[in-house]
């Protein structure tokens, strides 16, 4: 075996090194050092994230490894970098939660599980063979169930974990069923060979459609697309807030990229005959139903859950186009979504840590008691809704442009429906802003409170991202260039 092919997996190996350092630190170092494990993880991961932005430091010679099962490219490295940025912010946000009395004894495990799930997501994105993909998928989703159950003394956390693990296993069973039919049709599990077989021999359209319906349903659970979204709100509400933000941003983002890779690379050649309309229906349903349910939520974590369901619909729009431009738009959208959603979760988490309040009514008049938190929340809501000066507007704009570029009437209708939904979403995002700025202070309002240093740092990074990405256009140009447009 040629061991030099491991050089293609530089990011995975670096991540494993970070993981091992954290792990060894958690086991062997003196108590005094162990107590700092959160900070140590943040620093190590931050250094690693920075290093990855300079790929020229590590000379590149291999593009694929393990006879094509694993593949990397500048675009994939950029995707992993985007995820790294999000994970870094989540790590900072979780510092305060992990040093509360209930968590202190097992917080090392939290950081270890988190890094391992990220490793699984890397494999999902880089996999070009369904076996490696499934291993990555399970490595990503099984530790997540343990993380959802992490607040062992809080009953909601356990209930959320049961719902998450049962749906996760259910969805992977459905996904595997789909893969088994694909295997029957093509006799291979390599993405590129599957595409070749479809191209060369043609295909039995009915069996292929059934297989693809299974595959899309399985991935739809991970991405929480409607009608596979029923677990989302409960799990997001019950899980500890740092885990919720991790689920809603990193897990969803990586699933979106992996979904894109599967659909384009393995099934791209049968796009029009098998999955085009399935995807259209899913997108319309996801955006609309997510929006309509978000309107009636009062618990902010549930509200953000449904908002993230509808955001997943917008993310899927990047997949429709099937071109490099769609990939760039998707990457940009996920990057902006990371900053905006993590800002929202950062505020919710900070207030929950200090006072335990998560209802929208508690946010009435927040501007008068905690002006800076209210301002950050407003920026996040504006960015999620897509109001012009902020990053969210541009990400929506680019993703609509990429979807339209193919130019069929159906796509115009699809984007039109998405646009109408943007206006609906504006309503409920502004409800939160209204509660914070216009409603008077009442008895339930969150009192003046001190958020911890780590929470403030994370929020500052998010605010810088939301405003910065809105103004600095080179980021999108850079992504376009990486994707080869």
């Amino acid at each position: 075996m040629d061991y030099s092919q491991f050089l293609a997996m530089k990011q995975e190996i670096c991540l494993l090194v970070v993981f091992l350092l954290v792990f060894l630190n958690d086991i062997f170092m003196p108590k005094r050092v162990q107590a700092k494990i959160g900070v140590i993880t943040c620093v190590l991961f931050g250094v690693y994230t920075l290093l990855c932005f300079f790929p020229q430091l590590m000379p590149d010679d291999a593009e694929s490894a393990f006879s094509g099962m694993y593949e990397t490219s500048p675009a994939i490295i950029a995707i992993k970098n985007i995820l790294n940025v999000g994970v870094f912010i989540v790590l900072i946000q979780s510092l305060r939660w992990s040093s509360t009395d209930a968590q202190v004894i097992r917080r090392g495990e939290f950081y270890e599980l988190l890094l391992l799930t990220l490793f699984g997501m890397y494999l999902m994105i880089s996999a070009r063979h369904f076996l490696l993909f499934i291993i990555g998928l399970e490595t990503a989703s099984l530790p997540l169930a343990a993380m959802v159950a992490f607040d062992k003394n809080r009953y909601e956390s356990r209930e959320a974990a049961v719902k998450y693990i049962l749906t996760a296993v259910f969805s992977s069973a459905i996904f595997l069923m789909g893969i088994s039919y694909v295997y029957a049709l093509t006799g291979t599990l390599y993405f590129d060979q599957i595409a070749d077989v479809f191209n060369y021999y043609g295909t039995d359209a009915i069996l292929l459609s059934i297989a693809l319906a299974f595959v899309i349903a399985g991935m739809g659970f991970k991405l929480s697309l409607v009608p596979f979204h029923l677990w989302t709100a409960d799990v997001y509400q019950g899980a500890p807030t740092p885990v919720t933000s991790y689920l809603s941003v990193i897990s969803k983002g990586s699933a979106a990229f992996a979904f894109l890779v599967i659909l384009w690379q393995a099934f791209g050649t049968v796009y029009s005959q098998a999955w085009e309309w399935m995807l259209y229906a899913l997108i319309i349903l996801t955006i609309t139903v997510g929006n309509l349910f978000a309107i009636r939520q009062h618990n902010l974590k549930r509200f953000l859950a449904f908002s993230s369901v509808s955001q997943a619909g917008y993310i899927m729009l990047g997949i429709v186009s099937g071109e490099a431009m769609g990939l760039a738009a998707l990457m940009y959208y996920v990057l902006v979504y990371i900053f905006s959603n993590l800002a929202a979760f950062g505020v919710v988490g900070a207030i929950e840590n200090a006072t335990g309040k998560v209802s929208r009514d508690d946010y009435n008049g927040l501007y008068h008691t905690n002006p800076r938190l209210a301002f950050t929340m407003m920026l996040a809501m504006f960015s999620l809704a897509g109001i012009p000066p902020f990053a969210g507007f541009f990400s929506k704009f680019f993703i609509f442009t990429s979807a339209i570029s193919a130019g069929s009437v159906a796509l115009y209708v699809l984007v039109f429906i998405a646009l109408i939904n943007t206006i609906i979403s504006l309503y409920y995002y502004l409800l939160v802003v209204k509660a914070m700025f216009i409603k008077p202070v009442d008895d339930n309002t969150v009192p003046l409170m001190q958020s911890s240093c780590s929470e403030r740092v994370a929020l500052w990074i998010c605010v810088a991202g939301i405003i910065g990405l809105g103004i600095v256009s080179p980021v999108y140009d850079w992504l376009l260039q990486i994707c080869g447009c």
Partner: protein
Amino acid sequence: MEITMIYYLIPALIMFCCGLYGFITRRNMIAMLISLELMLNAVDINFVVFNRYLYPGNMEGMFFTLFAIAIAAAETALAIAIIINVFRKIKNVDVEDLTKLKD
């Protein structure tokens, strides 16, 4: 009588559908887990049969099955651990009692 592929595929499909039906209708979490296991094992049968009958030249399906079995075991172990965790609180394993999280 010659045993053809269809003799394996039909039972596998029935197993999968039983699992699906059980997962949706059963209210006992352990029974739901058993249903999930049925679905995963139906997939394993599918892979092995397709490999044996359609593509006997390579072993891809068999290897996939081996990994799928290992993954299914890990999933079950984790799910049982979490269910026990819930059982300690509510003293039964009925999903109808998981009603704390709703609006």
